[in-house]
């Protein structure tokens, strides 16, 4: 019996070894160069899985089909799955044609690897003539090709409830010192002056504070260069950002890193915290009656010599370089860039986003009007930490910033660690 066993084992081992050699020679990691089929509908891969946004996308696709020049099939994927799968989609042999995603350095990283379709034809259409210069350069890759079609954007600001500010007898601050006074007053009334919401699974919200302090102190150019790896996180410029932040830490909600931003915005609406640096997307979950009561002010200017910059993340579409439906993709992209598609989307979604196409009417609420002016006054636009760098760099910021909030005295070693972790990402 033992003998019997041994010989069988040897046979299996031999077969296994032979199999291994055969299998390793062909490899899952090899990138194929096939093209997707040239017939059928254009596939539109969307990460807009929130119910309102998903429905709005369905409306857009339906009205595109009604127009008659082509048709698209919408495939909505959960946002987190979409994010991790995107490289796989783009490198697969038969990729989806069009994707929702971000312009700027995120799109450029894929463009550098020749994965994105040149959309020059789309940009030459009359629909995109009116797009701002900032959007033009945002959608152009490092090699000078247009690789992205933007459709909507939103803005970040210090949001608060008007009725609460009136109740506490405080007003929007006009300067950094005014902001500190406001924090003092709110604290004396037993309110947590600044809500954060960097707990749960939304640690990235803290990056807004880093972004804003950096673009106010060092300017947008420095900020973008820093995130691209051309400066170091342990440089004295970055240290100044955290010195300023340290002044504010006593005013932050002590549970800032324990609750997710959704809970933090609930606290804001309930008047347990005074204000919050957040993007307009938080309003999606706000009750209707609170919506008219929400207002915001500009993140206070710290150094008037630094050109005014605001965070306004832009959303839109890019297409796979391997698509076989080139003409259909261009046609769909032109439609998405046009006024009709953007109006339909804004009507269907929560209505706090702004259209990129200047001919489109926004939702027209006072908040959106103020938001539009807020962005137009800015000399520079930044996107957000991950959009100006990469999703891979975001976790390094999450770790550094939550640690800073918990142990601000260790800022020296925190920045050294951050630089070391970030270097791994930049060199990867």
């Amino acid at each position, binding site marked *: 019996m033992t003998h019997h066993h041994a010989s069988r084992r040897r046979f299996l081992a031999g077969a296994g070894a032979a199999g291994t050699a055969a299998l390793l020679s062909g*490899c899952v*990691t090899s990138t194929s160069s096939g093209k997707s089929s040239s017939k059928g509908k254009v596939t539109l891969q969307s990460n807009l899985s929130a119910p309102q946004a998903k429905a709005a996308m369905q409306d857009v696709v339906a009205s595109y089909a009604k127009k008659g020049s082509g048709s698209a099939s919408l495939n909505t994927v959960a946002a987190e799955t979409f994010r991790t799968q995107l490289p796989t989609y783009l490198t697969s042999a038969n990729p989806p044609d069009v994707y929702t995603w971000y312009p700027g350095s995120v799109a450029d990283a894929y463009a550098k690897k020749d994965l994105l379709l040149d959309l020059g034809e789309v940009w030459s259409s009359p629909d995109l003539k009116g797009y701002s210069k900032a959007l033009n350069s945002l959608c152009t890759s490092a090699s000078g090709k247009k690789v992205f079609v933007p459709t909507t954007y939103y803005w970040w600001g210090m949001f608060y409830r008007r009725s609460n500010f009136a109740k506490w007898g405080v007003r929007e601050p006009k300067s950094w010192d005014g902001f500190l006074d406001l924090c003092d007053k709110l604290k004396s009334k037993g309110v947590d002056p600044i809500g954060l919401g960097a707990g749960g699974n939304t640690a990235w919200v803290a990056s807004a504070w880093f972004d804003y302090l950096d673009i106010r102190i060092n300017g947008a150019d420095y900020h973008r260069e820093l995130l691209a790896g051309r400066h170091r996180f342990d440089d004295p410029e970055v240290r100044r950002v955290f010195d300023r932040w340290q002044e504010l830490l006593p005013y932050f909600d002590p549970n800032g890193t324990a*609750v997710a931003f959704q809970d933090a915005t609930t606290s804001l609406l309930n008047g347990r915290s005074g204000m919050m640096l957040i993007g307009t997307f938080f309003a999606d979950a706000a009750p209707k009656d609170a919506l008219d009561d929400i207002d915001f002010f500009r993140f206070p200017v710290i150094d008037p010599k630094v050109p005014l910059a605001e965070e306004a993340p832009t959303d839109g579409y890019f297409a796979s370089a391997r698509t076989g439906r080139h003409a259909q993709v261009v046609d769909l992209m032109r439609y998405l860039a046009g006024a009709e598609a953007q109006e339909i989307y804004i009507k269907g979604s929560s209505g706090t986003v702004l259209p990129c196409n200047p001919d489109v009417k926004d939702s027209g609420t006072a908040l959106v009007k103020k938001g539009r002016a807020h962005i137009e006054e800015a000399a520079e636009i930044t996107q957000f930490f991950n959009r100006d760098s990469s999703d891979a760099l975001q976790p390094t910021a999450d*770790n550094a910033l939550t640690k800073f909030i*918990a142990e601000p005295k260790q800022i020296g070693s925190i920045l050294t660690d951050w630089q070391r972790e970030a270097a791994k990402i930049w060199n*990867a």
Partner: protein
Amino acid sequence: MPDTAVLTVPGRKAPAPPPPRRGRNRGPRRTPPLVLAFVLVPLLAEALWVFWPALQGFYLALTDWDGVSAPRFVGLANFREMTHDDVFLDATGHTVLWLLLFGGLSAVLGLAAALVLQQERRGVGFYRAALFLPVVFSLVATALVWQAIYQPDGVLNQLLESVGLGSLRHAWLADQDTALYAVTVPALWRQIGYVMVLYVAGLKGIDPALYEAAKVDGAGAWQRLRHVTLPQLRSVNAVVLSVIVIDSLRSFDVVWSLTRGGPYHSSELLSTYMYSTAFQSLRLGYGSALAVVIFVLAFGVICSYLVRAFREAD
């Protein structure tokens, strides 16, 4: 969870029954083609869906790969990087702590629960079911409930407040000193029921005559436990140990849903570090190298134990 049970049970039975005698007497017998098909087809499927990707993982561990460009072969550079990667060393420490806390406590408490609930009394089925129930729930769903419990104004803090321990109120998951322990509790809550079921099955298999003989010899309850029950449970222990080691090393869902290894890596395990390295930082080569380390650890511990256990059994 069920997959490990399926995997380990044959292992436990392996040394036991000899093949039917009549077949052997007739000399070497041809394997019927149907049986061959039953063996080869699953083997092929397994090879394609399990062994091949696993081998690819070993290959990827030797490369530098971002998931988009072609992987670049770097030899053992990934493993050299680990030796001076603080996060990796911390994660290893946390994993060992996790193995001791989660593994040790679930074994001890699972055995205790099994001993208490082994006798057939009225209502004992209800308690067994109640303890086993958490195993049925998805750990992600479990984690969501525990997240609510641990919230700054959640159940736990309110409970502490109401019994006058308000000073202990805490952001349990957001504090680096408590995060790892806070995550261990829901994992234990689930694992104890599972280990208990394994031990109940083992206890049922012990010949009652042994206890009677021990009683006749004047052995007390403690002596019966020490000299009859525990030695008789040796084969179950092998299963429990394998299950615990595998489950400890692959504990991921509960940690990821509660803290994502944070705040700032303070509840990072090897498994969560592997995931975030591979799929967030997009360093798939280094992530694969971490996976190889986890595999070697799990495989090493289990193999050495099983080899010893079965050698003793022979």
